[in-house]
């Protein structure tokens, strides 16, 4: 069965390592914070100028001057630091963030990603996403594998305006965990109960299936 949003977040969280500085995008990526494995510490970077983002505040703690990149009120953890936007993106662009998790509309076999606009229909703006995909070495894209109508989002070539070129190596969808290399999608893991054939069918770009593909473990 396809993973729920929570399960996608849970699987991504398994990629966290102790001491990682992590930037989580808006939407599913934000949920990853709820599944940090036991015994592991990570610090969350929010590109509006905070490293060490904590939980949502209580009613009493709410502070209009303390928000995350999704403009939600948040708190700080012990050891947090604050800085301006140029410094925040110096961290990001300079490759100092260990892991970036963000959503997308489409990815393709060349590691291209489209996530910020659908011409004539939707313009969100790229926010910090273009900086994040260009600056980070270790990125996980979370997205649904295909549209409700069964149209694949893992393409030979992105159709929408790009957010970044050749920068995505790992994609976690509701159906599969996939690595992008050598111009192909490589199937690493399947969602529990989802067959390789199902994944194959909903993947437009060339999918390499090497040996037995394990199910994700939770």
């Amino acid at each position: 069965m396809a993973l729920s949003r929570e399960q996608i977040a849970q699987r991504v969280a398994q990629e966290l390592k102790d001491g990682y500085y992590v930037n989580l995008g808006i939407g599913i990526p934000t949920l990853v914070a709820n599944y940090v494995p036991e015994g592991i510490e990570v610090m969350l970077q929010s590109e509006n100028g905070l490293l060490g983002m904590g939980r949502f505040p209580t009613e009493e703690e709410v502070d209009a001057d303390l928000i995350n990149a999704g403009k939600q009120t948040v708190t700080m953890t012990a050891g947090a630091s604050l800085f301006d936007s140029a410094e925040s993106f110096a961290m990001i662009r300079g490759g100092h963030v260990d892991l970036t998790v963000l959503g997308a509309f489409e990815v393709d076999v060349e590691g291209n990603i489209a996530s910020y606009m659908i011409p004539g229909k939707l313009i969100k703006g790229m926010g910090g996403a273009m900086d994040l995909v260009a600056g980070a070495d270790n990125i996980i894209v979370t997205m649904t594998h295909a549209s409700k109508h069964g149209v694949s989002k893992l393409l030979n070539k992105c159709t929408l305006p790009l957010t970044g070129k050749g920068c995505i190596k790992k994609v976690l969808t509701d159906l599969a965990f996939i690595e992008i290399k050598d111009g192909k999608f490589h199937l690493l893991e399947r969602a529990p109960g989802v067959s390789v054939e199902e994944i194959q069918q909903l993947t437009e770009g060339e999918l390499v299936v090497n040996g037995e593909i394990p199910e994700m473990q939770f």
Partner: protein
Amino acid sequence: MAGFNKVVNSYQEALAGLEDNMTLIVGGFGLCGNPENLIKEIKRRGTTGLTVVSNNCGTTEHGLGILLFDKQIKKMVASYVGENDNFESQMMSGELEVELTPQGTLAEKMRAGGAGIPAFYTATGYGTPVAEGKEVREFNGKKYILEESVTGDFALVKAYKADTYGNLVFRKTARNFNPLAATAGKITVVEVEEIVEPGELDPDEIHLSGIYVDRLIKGDFEKIIEQRTVRPSNQSEQGA
């Protein structure tokens, strides 16, 4: 006003000289740390044809959004259009010119503008619509695009505290683009919650030197919260 005293006493005075068709660099991230009273004064003045450089354009009803509503803005340079329906619709209709700029590039363009760096290379936006018309160059096997700096006729800034010399302290994530914007204005106007005497701020804790500040005014702030997310207060504490 003599010596280094930058304090002015009215918002009219704070924005004296602001004219139609000028370029404004405006601090704030959404409504967080936005110079809300300076923006209201621009609405009052009815200045039009403005080019506004700011991460986003407030919401439909607050922050820079109120200038969009009155069609005082001709062009926006911003990274994010969301949370403001007027912004998206005026952009789609072509009524508003928009230069979508990645957030980090925007921050760096402001800093560069203030720092006398006319242009810099960044990997951000390479191979995307942002790169159109821009030089591409390879350094150490990686592709970068050339981005030019930005400056404005005015910079509008919100800080937390200042001394009368314009030395600024920001608070939490309300800092965001504010210190960068402050460096990039020909005339930099700052509104703050509190003004103290020179010597009262620890020189090591000043976030931005008063050398960048031309006018300073004490304001009262609404501080609208866009997304009030809370947890029940009976959960145990983890944050600081």
